């Protein structure tokens, strides 16, 4: 093929042209695969990349009536207002606190759970446990918030009713600032720890069984096997998921925080997402909240790239 082409165009080729041609040739060879990828590419272009141009309103005083093209440019005014706002630190603190509580307590939960499930020898029992712990994932936050209110309310809440039955003091679970973050983390674990085991169980099943046999021969106990075979075997998956999670560090899940929050706990429950909702959706300050959203995204991007770099520094594969 190459000879044929060279014969058609003798002599007058520079190296970049050849490279170009080679690339074209590869594309032509895989043309059907590229065609198959085309709808997907269009999807991302249309729904992910083109909408990004809307971010320019973060630098404008956007008014719907005059449109993006005719709105006044204000530069970084919205960012200045946001960072100089005394609420900024509270929002940042709450967002990071909720995120890191999740990273610290929620993230390891499915790992521990799947290692435990891996040690269950009875297949029927294992399947049963899996089905039961997957279930809460399919409940919406609205329902979980409703259940929480029924369980934790002060006047007729189930837990408080039991407490007062034993003559104990009622606990204001829903209106106490110090209990709010732990409550969110516990809800997350209850809802999604089971679902999270799907990936880790798959990773564990990919570990070579001969490694366990060899460890047994060397006299390793069950715990030692977990520590020296299972964990290193799924280490890469854990790392990838952790990096992806770090990218979401500024997204704490609007629904959950919004539904569980109230004026009584607002000093710990106000996060970037609820702030954007209040000012952007309710108060119509589109430009200002677009700048808040942009700030969030940039922090997320930095976190992912930083974590990836760190992982590579420690000799791991990382994300890309």
């Amino acid at each position: 093929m190459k000879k044929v082409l060279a014969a058609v165009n003798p002599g007058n080729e520079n190296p970049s042209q050849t490279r170009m041609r080679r690339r074209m040739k590869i594309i032509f060879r895989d043309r059907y695969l590229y065609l198959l990828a085309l709808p997907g590419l269009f999807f991302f272009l249309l729904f992910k990349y083109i909408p990004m141009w809307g971010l320019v309103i973060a630098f404008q005083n956007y008014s719907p009536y005059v449109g993006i093209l005719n709105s006044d440019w204000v530069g970084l005014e919205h960012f200045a207002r946001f960072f100089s706002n005394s609420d900024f630190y509270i929002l940042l603190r709450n967002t990071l606190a909720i995120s890191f509580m999740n990273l610290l307590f929620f993230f390891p939960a499915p790992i521990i759970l799947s290692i435990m499930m891996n040690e269950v020898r009875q297949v029927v029992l294992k399947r049963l446990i899996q089905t039961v712990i997957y279930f809460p994932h399919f409940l919406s936050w609205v329902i979980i918030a409703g259940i929480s209110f029924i369980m934790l309310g002060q006047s007729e809440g189930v837990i408080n009713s039991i407490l007062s039955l034993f003559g104990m003091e009622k606990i204001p679970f829903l209106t106490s600032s110090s209990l709010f973050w732990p409550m969110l983390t516990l809800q997350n674990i209850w809802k999604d720890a089971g679902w999270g085991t799907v990936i880790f169980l798959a990773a564990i099943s990919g570990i070579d069984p001969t490694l366990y046999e060899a460890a047994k021969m060397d006299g390793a106990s069950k715990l030692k096997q977990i520590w020296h075979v299972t964990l290193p075997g799924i280490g890469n998956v854990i790392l990838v998921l952790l990096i992806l999670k770090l990218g979401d560090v500024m997204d704490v899940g609007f629904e959950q925080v919004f539904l569980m929050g109230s004026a009584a706990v607002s000093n710990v429950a106000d996060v970037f997402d609820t702030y954007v909702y209040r000012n952007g959706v309710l108060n119509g300050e589109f430009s200002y909240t677009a700048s808040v959203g942009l700030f969030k995204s940039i922090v997320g991007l930095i976190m992912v790239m930083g974590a990836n770099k760190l992982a590579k520094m420690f000799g791991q594969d990382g994300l890309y």
Partner: protein
Amino acid sequence: MKRSNLLSIRRLSAVLFVITLAAATLLGACSNGTGNAPGNAPGNTQGDPGNDKPGNMTKDPDTGNGNQEEPTPISIMTTFYGAEPPGPDNVIVKEIEKRTGTKLNITWVSPNSYNEKVNVTLASGDMPDLSLISDNFASNVRTMAAQGAFWELESYIKEYPNLSAYPKEAWDNTRYQDGKIYAIPRVRGLDAGMVSVRKDWLDKLKLPVPKTTDDLYNVMKAFTNDDPDGNGNKDTVGLVGSIGSDGLNLGSFTHIVNIFQNASDGWKIDENGKLINMVTDKSTKDALAWLSKAYREGLIHADFATLKNTQAREAIMTGKAGIAFEAVSAAWVLTEGIRTTNPSGDMLPLDSLTGPSGTPYIGKGSGYSGVFVIPKTVPEEKMKKILSFLDYGASAEGYELGAYGFKDVHFTKDGDFYVQTEQAKKDIVSTSAIGQIFTRYDQYAYAKAPNVPADYYNRSKGIIDEIGKVSVSNPSNGLYSDTWAKYRNDFLKKTTDLQVKIMLGTEPLEKWDAFVAELLSDANWNKSLEELNDAYNKKMGK
């Protein structure tokens, strides 16, 4: 080059197939995205063949009964309450179209997401010919009005007798800063009431109807401790309420604060003719002291901070609580709920309450709830047509048709009351549907409710008369300040947060003094008040 010549027809067709598939996917995605808005055009023509097609209207002499003009198409966005909105083929919608010479394309939006929907629609710049806007003084709506996005209506209104029959206060309250009217109010009664008390419990405990906040406190105490329902258990509570769902106001408890402040919504004109916000006044602190003491003593529902409005109402209807800060219209809904289990139950709306200041207080409404706007993109002729459409809806005949349907089919009349038939439910004829477009001023609208018995209705009418003698309106209505618009939500949220915490006792009352001092030294707060005062003077023509 050579290679491509070798492409067989089969391969070519395979390529074409993949491209078509890709294009189809994209188109499918696109049409899904826009399918939200009108989308029911085919349904219309199918549902009523012959009547809508312009060709038929002009050519066929049989169908045009008197109305030979082509119907004006009007797109409308509004809200609805109830399970589902009427469809485009709804018998009443069809009748209204016939009588007004219009072709309606109504987008019904659930009230739960109406505000969001309005903001998104405004942001898209693609507005229907007539839209209901729930908060006409939201900053984005204001900006658009100032930029000339809506028709200025004052000079046109007087030609429409039914629209100009709306109370002057309602029209005046829609005025923006520049003193102009850009919107048609969705008119409501001016005096809505404020608080209702279980009358049967009062009678049982031999207590008089409360007149002052001190009386109210004693009633709350008795309702909590003296077993008003007589079941032998201490399972009732005096007052139930909920915090505003947006977290920007104390919700039903705002009224108590307002009674202490003796100011509607906290705004007042002081003796020097200046507009002041009473949050920084000592009376607000007194109100908070009253509320937090009541909560500490268990006289307010323990979960008020996390209750939703509907849950608070349930507490009343199931006989768990005896006082609710709800309007006259809600008083009957609550009473009806109580009566399903306790036939003697009775929520009595109070005409006012007197705080420490010694003056009886009750707030006056703005006379409307939301407004309709017509965007400037609509041509003048069509705008006039829309106004006459609304004018018809505000007439006795039009309102009856829209809200209650056909006589003897959808309703029968019993004095002032409309008794709805089963057919009305089937055809979705109600004030919750077309009644959200067609409105008519009725001073006693709040006394009317489905199934209300005559004695209860007449009592409510009397109470509304009494309220009218006392009620005061909010002087800050319609005023605008750039700074206030920008920082309003922040201020309101901080205020509400601290107030709730003080009520719950998680923050001491002394914190309030520090907060007030902070507010008074806040540059943005002071600037807001200054700008609002300027606006007030301007609006008053000073």
